[in-house]
């Protein structure tokens, strides 16, 4: 029997909603779970605070379970020492909820930069100074070393974060990230919000994944309410999700080539991306398809002539994209920059449970559309590309191959689109305390959404975990030994979300 199932059965069951369970466990079981994760038996899907509890969501394929540690003394045993992927999440829990990870090897604040004017905003919420707390970066010392601090305001049109490089000449010896600059307090904004308002916020956790976030949130709410979106809504949600994936992959492929000073592919990808966004506008009335997915379905059916616009788009990209792929593949100066640059080892990817192109370029095949799976993907044919090299080139190729798959998915979706309504009549009121979990595959990787609802139909608690939580730390590993000038290339090939991570 799977160890996760045994642990769940030994704990005190709280909830057995469709598809997953939650159980309260004690200190010993909590540590035992971390040991299992550290030994490679399963991966962590999330770790978050909730009042005086911490929840640990674990995947031991095919099972997903949530283990809860109650913290009446506002403390819980830290697992970050045993299992480093938990480190930043534990630091975030301490910053937001004031629950202390006991014996954590890293006690520095993470999201709290000492600027909020409050401590533990979702815990005791005490007034505090707002003049900024100093941050102790890790040292890398010795005569030839020099420091290169970068950010939070970067040179490009990108999000803010601080990178501190220690370099030996041109070679990066250590990269340390400091994030949290775009922390917007999303979990507290969600508290007490109506489902409608909360869905709008969920769609703005990371704007590039607005469809995926809105979908994850909607599915979590639907799981909590025990309802299912109408079939046509499921299919149209998938159309939006695949359009979002195609648009982002085009943007990324172009931007990676641009960071290798090859502007031609960037220019052409920019044109294709714009065509995708215009098709999205034609079909759904918004270029990024914000606020189109809502709990219970989608906010509006396809606009007239939308299917024509999508067929034209599929043909157009299908015709022009292969030329760009060939150009990428045949340009030696470009390959010279991407091949064998920023190699991420498969063992690290498995350990961190990293998803998306970061995981799949280093041998981890996880794709939430396949397993745990959600409609309508079981009715569609597609492959999940996987490579082993783990370099920038492999991350480009995963995007290329996923884009091809998404084009095929779009064609299949349009060919078999069911008829019917696209939104449930008014949603039922929740049973007080009803919970729901959803895992959705965004372009960047798997997004986890967990909600607990109040009886009056508002959100009691919501946690949205971005795939970047398990990808950012790996960028620190992948960049080691590379030259400083290759950092933009490596960073772009990861394309982690700052906003999604900082919440």
């Amino acid at each position: 029997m799977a160890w996760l199932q045994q642990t769940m059965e030994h704990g005190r069951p709280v909830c057995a909603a469709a598809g997953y369970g939650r159980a309260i466990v004690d200190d010993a079981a909590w540590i035992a779970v971390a040991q299992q994760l550290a030994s490679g038996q399963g991966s962590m899907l999330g770790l978050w605070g909730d009042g005086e509890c911490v929840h640990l969501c674990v995947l031991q394929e095919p099972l997903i379970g949530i283990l809860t540690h109650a913290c009446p003394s506002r403390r819980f045993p830290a697992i970050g020492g045993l299992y480093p992927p938990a480190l930043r999440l534990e630091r975030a829990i301490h910053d937001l909820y004031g629950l202390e990870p006991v014996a954590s090897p890293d006690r520095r604040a993470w999201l709290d930069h000492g600027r909020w004017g409050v401590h533990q905003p979702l815990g005791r919420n005490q007034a505090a100074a707002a003049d900024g707390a100093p941050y102790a970066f890790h040292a890398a010392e010795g005569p030839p070393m020099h420091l290169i601090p970068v950010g939070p305001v970067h040179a490009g049109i990108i999000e803010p974060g601080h990178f501190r490089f220690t370099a030996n000449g041109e070679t990066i010896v250590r990269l340390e990230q400091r994030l949290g600059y775009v922390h917007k307090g999303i979990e507290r904004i969600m508290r007490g919000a109506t489902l409608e308002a909360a869905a709008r916020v969920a769609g703005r956790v990371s704007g590039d994944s607005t469809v995926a976030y809105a979908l994850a949130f909607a599915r979590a709410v639907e799981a909590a309410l025990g309802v299912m979106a109408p079939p046509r809504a499921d299919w149209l949600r998938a159309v939006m999700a695949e359009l979002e994936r195609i648009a982002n992959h085009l943007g990324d492929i172009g931007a990676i080539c641009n960071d290798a000073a090859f502007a031609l592919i960037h220019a052409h990808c920019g044109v294709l991306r714009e065509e995708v966004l215009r098709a999205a506008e034609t079909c759904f009335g918004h270029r990024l398809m914000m606020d189109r997915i809502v709990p219970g379905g989608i906010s509006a059916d396809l606009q007239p002539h939308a299917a024509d616009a999508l067929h034209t788009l599929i043909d157009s990209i299908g015709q022009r994209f292969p030329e760009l792929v060939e150009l990428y593949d045949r340009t030696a100066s470009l390959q010279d920059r991407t091949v064998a640059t920023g190699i991420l080892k498969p063992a690290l990817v498995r350990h961190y449970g990293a998803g998306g192109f970061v995981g799949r370029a280093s041998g981890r095949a996880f794709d939430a559309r396949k397993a745990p799976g959600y409609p309508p993907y079981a009715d569609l044919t597609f492959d999940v590309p996987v490579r082993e090299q783990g370099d920038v080139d492999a991350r480009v190729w995963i995007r290329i191959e996923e884009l091809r798959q998404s084009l095929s998915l779009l064609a299949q979706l349009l060919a078999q689109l069911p008829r019917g309504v696209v939104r449930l009549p008014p949603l039922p009121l929740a049973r007080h305390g009803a919970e729901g979990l959803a895992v959705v595959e965004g372009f960047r990787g798997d997004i986890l959404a967990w909600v607990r609802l109040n009886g009056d139909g508002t959100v009691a608690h919501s946690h949205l975990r971005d795939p970047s939580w398990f990808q950012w730390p790996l960028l620190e590993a992948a960049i080691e030994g590379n030259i400083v000038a290759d950092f933009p290339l490596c960073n772009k090939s990861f394309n982690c979300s700052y906003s999604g991570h900082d919440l």
Partner: protein
Amino acid sequence: MRTLLLKSLLQAPLTEPAPTADDAELDRLAQSLRSAGHRRLGRSLAIREVDAGSCNGCELEIHALNNAFYDLERFGLRFVASPRHADVLLVTGPVTKNMREALERTWAATPDPKWVVAAGDCARGCGVFAGSYACVGSVAAVIPVDVAIAGCPPTPTALLKGLLALLECSDRSRA
């Protein structure tokens, strides 16, 4: 590559005609610029983009300004890598408390005369993040704003209109 370049040479440009500057914005701006006595910089403005807390939706559309359809540089507008090279700060996001100082320092590092464009509903009025313990509020709550562009996110056309209003105004204010 040669065939791709040749095709691009032979086909008609994708670039679309410029939208007209946002009129309401133009009038309001003209006044504020004259009263401030700003010197004209010519029809060429260097823009430094600052994400002060955005969800990155605005950044996607700002990126799109550089694509062949909108081709921002034909207007003499271009993005630069440092505030020290900039005439305009294009700021997005509800300003988070963790980004406030960085935004203030970026503004201080930008040489005079300078303009600030607040792009997007969050930058204009904090958007869905209003009231959060972690956000200061709109950009205007932190640094003086000359133009605000609505939208969540604003479309590239809306961004272009706002930026063109700024250009037109710097023309008028010299006249």
